[in-house]
C-alpha cells in the first residue's frame, strides 16, 4: 500500500523566467503594501490588482484563447499561483472565478455562458462567488432548501444562501438550487449562474470578528433568471457542485496563504537569533518544504489527468494544520510585545486571530479526514 503515490513534478523549462516575470510584475504593482495585508492573502479583495493581473495574462491561463484565455500548461499556472501566494498578493477578488467558476463553465456551461463570463473572468474584471451553504446546513451541503421553479419566462429562484465569500464584490453567483419540488438530499438539485444585479436579490454583509466584510447572506425573493442561467443538466447539480469543489484541489494555497508571516519573521531575526527561535524556524521550514513536495505531486497528478482525491485531501488537512499552528509556534518563541505597533507584531497579531479559522477551509477537519478514510476503504 502506498496511500500517497508520489507523482514527479516535471517543472516546465521556463519555470525560472515565469517566476522572474511575475516577481517583476509584483514589484511594480505592490511596491509598498502594508505587510498585514499580505497575511492570509488569499481572502484579500483588490479588484485593481486582479485587473492588472488579468491584463498581464495571469488569469484564465489554461483556457482557450477564444474566451480570453492563454492556453498555458497546468504546471505553468501552478508556478504562477505559488509565486502569488508566497508574495502575499491580494488574490481574493478573482480567486473563485479563476479557480472554480471558469473551469466549471468550460466543462458544463453553454457556449453562451462561456462567451458571457469567461473573458471577464480572464481579464480580472468580473468575479464570481459560490452559493452552497444555507442557514443551518453546516457541513451538510445537500440540505438545500432554496428553490428554482421553472416557468415559461425562465426560472424563479427563492431562498437564502449564507457564508457567501465575496458576494458583495461579485458579478455572478454559481448557486445550487432545488429545482425539483419535494425532492430530497442530493437529488433534484441544479446549478444556476445568477447575475447578482437582478431584481429580487438582496446581499447583506456578515461582519467577521475583526469588523471586516468577507462573508454575506444572499436572499432570493422570486428572482427571475433566464432559462440560459441553468448550468449543465437539470437535476445534475449535486454532481456538478462536487466537481466544482474538487477544483479546490489544484493549488498550493493550503500551505502558502500566510507565507508572508514566515518570511517577515525570518527577516526580523538575522543569523544571531536565539536557539529556540532558530529551531522553530527550522521546524516550520521542514513542514513547509514537505508540504510543497506534496502539493507539487498533487498538481502533477492533476496535470496528467488524474484526480487525486485522497492525496489532495491529505495536503489540505496538513496544510490547514500547518498554517493554523505557524503563528502560534512563532508567538511561543518570539520575544515581542504584540502591541508595539511594528509590522511584524501587527502581522503576527492578525494571523493569531485568523488562524483558528484555517481548520474550516475547504471542508472541516472531520470532513477532510472522512474523505481520506473513504479513500482508504474504511467507509
Amino acid at each position: 500500500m502506498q496511500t500517497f503515490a508520489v507523482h514527479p513534478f516535471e517543472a516546465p523549462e521556463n519555470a525560472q523566467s515565469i517566476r522572474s516575470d511575475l516577481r517583476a510584475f509584483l514589484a511594480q504593482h505592490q511596491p509598498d503594501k502594508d505587510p498585514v495585508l499580505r497575511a492570509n492573502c488569499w481572502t484579500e479583495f483588490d479588484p485593481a490588482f486582479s485587473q492588472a493581473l488579468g491584463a498581464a495574462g495571469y488569469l484564465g491561463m489554461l483556457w482557450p484563447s477564444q474566451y480570453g484565455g492563454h492556453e498555458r500548461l497546468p504546471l505553468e499556472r501552478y508556478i504562477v499561483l505559488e509565486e502569488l501566494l508566497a508574495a502575499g498578493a491580494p488574490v481574493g477578488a478573482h480567486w473563485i472565478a479563476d479557480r472554480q467558476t471558469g473551469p466549471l463553465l468550460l466543462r458544463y456551461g453553454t457556449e453562451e455562458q462561456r462567451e458571457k463570463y469567461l473573458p471577464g473572468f480572464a481579464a480580472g474584471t468580473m468575479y464570481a462567488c459560490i452559493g452552497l451553504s444555507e442557514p443551518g446546513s453546516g457541513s451538510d451541503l445537500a440540505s438545500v432548501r432554496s428553490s428554482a421553479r421553472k416557468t415559461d419566462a425562465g426560472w424563479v429562484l427563492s431562498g437564502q444562501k449564507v457564508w457567501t465569500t465575496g458576494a458583495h464584490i461579485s458579478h455572478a453567483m454559481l448557486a445550487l438550487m432545488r429545482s425539483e419540488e419535494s425532492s430530497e438530499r442530493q437529488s433534484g438539485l441544479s446549478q444556476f449562474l445568477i447575475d447578482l444585479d437582478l431584481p429580487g436579490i438582496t446581499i447583506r454583509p456578515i461582519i467577521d470578528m475583526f469588523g471586516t466584510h468577507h462573508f454575506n447572506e444572499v436572499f432570493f425573493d422570486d428572482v427571475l433568471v433566464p432559462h440560459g442561467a441553468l448550468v449543465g443538466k437539470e437535476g445534475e447539480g449535486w454532481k456538478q457542485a462536487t466537481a466544482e469543489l474538487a477544483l479546490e484541489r489544484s493549488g498550493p494555497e493550503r500551505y502558502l496563504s500566510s507565507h508572508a508571516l514566515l518570511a517577515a519573521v525570518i527577516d526580523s531575526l538575522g543569523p544571531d537569533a536565539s536557539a529556540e527561535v532558530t529551531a522553530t524556524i527550522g521546524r516550520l521550514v521542514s513542514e513547509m518544504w514537505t508540504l510543497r513536495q506534496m502539493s507539487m505531486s498533487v498538481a502533477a497528478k492533476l496535470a496528467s489527468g488524474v484526480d487525486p482525491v485522497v492525496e489532495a485531501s491529505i495536503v489540505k488537512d496538513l496544510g490547514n494544520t500547518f498554517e493554523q499552528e505557524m503563528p502560534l509556534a512563532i508567538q511561543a518563541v518570539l520575544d515581542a510585545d504584540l502591541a508595539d505597533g511594528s509590522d511584524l507584531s501587527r502581522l503576527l497579531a492578525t494571523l493569531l486571530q485568523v488562524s483558528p479559522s484555517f481548520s474550516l477551509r475547504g471542508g472541516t477537519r472531520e470532513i477532510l479526514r472522512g474523505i481520506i478514510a473513504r479513500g482508504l476503504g474504511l467507509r
Partner: protein
Amino acid sequence: MSENREQLAEMADGLFAGLRGGEFDTFQTQIGEAGFGLLLVPESSEGFGGDWGDLATVMRLAGKHALAWPLGEHILAARLLHDAGRHADALTLLAGESSIPWGREAGDVLVERDGQILLVSGEVSAGESPAGEPRDMVAYDWDRAVPLGIEADLFGLIAFLRVCQTAGALDAALELAIEHTGQREQFGRPLSKFQSVQQSIALLAVEAAAANCAAQGAAAALDRFGHGGDARFEIGAAKLRSNIAIKVGAALAHQVHGAIGFTQDYPLHELTRRMMGWRSEGGNDAYWSARLGAQTLEWGGQGLWDQITRRTDPG
C-alpha cells in the same frame, strides 16, 4: 470554596456579566463602588482583605466575562501602594512589560526599573492588543519617578493574572461550545451527538481543567510564598501550561463552532482573541520554559521532586 469567597464570586459574576458591552467609564465607577480595587488591601486599612486565591477567583470571572477593563493591574497596584504606605487617587495600574492595557486611562503606573519598584507617569502612545483592546506604550518620565521601597515580582504577577483570566475564558468557551453543539443540527441530529464533536469538546474541557488547576496552584504558591518573587516556579509552570491550553483550546472551540464562531455577533471571539494576546503577555512559552528548565536543572532530578513536594507539604 470558603463562604466569603463564594459571596465574592457571586458578586463579581453578576457585576462583570452586567458590564458586558458597556463603556470604560461606567466600568470604573461600578467596579470602584463594588470595592474590587481594594480586594488585596487588608481589612485593617478598609480593604477587602482578600488573599491570592480570592484574586484568582475574581480574575477567572473577569476572563469568563471578557471584562474590558484593567482590573487585575488595578488591584495589584492598589495592594503594592498599600504595601508602600500609600494610597492612589487616580486609577493606578501595574506595568509588567513595555505596553500596558488601557495605559491611556492611568494616572500613575507602577513599574520595575533596575530592581526598584517606582511610581511614575509618562506620555502615552496608543496601541492595541490582538483583541483590539487599548494597550499602550508609555514613555516614562523617570525624573519624576517615586521609588516605593517595596519588593514585588511585577512580571510574575502579570503572568498570574493572565493564567487566571485564561482559566475563566476557557471555561466560558467550553460552555459556548456545549450550548452551540446542543442546539445546532446537522444531518438530522444535534452536532453534540457526533462522536468527533464529543471528542473535541472533551479535549477542550481537559485544557480548561488544566488551566483552572494551574491557576489555583499558582494562587496557593502566592499565598504561601508571597508576591516578592518566591512563587516564580509555580507562576511560571502555570503560565506555560496555560499558554498551551490557549493554543489547543482556542482552536478546538472554533473548530466545533464552525463559521459562526468567527462572526462579530457571536461572543466566542471575545474570549479567543483575548486569550491569543495573553499568550504573549507575562512571558511566552520560550520565556518560561527556559526559566523553569534552568531552575529544574539546578535542583537536579531528585531535587525536583523534593522541591515540588516540599513546596506543598505543611511546615
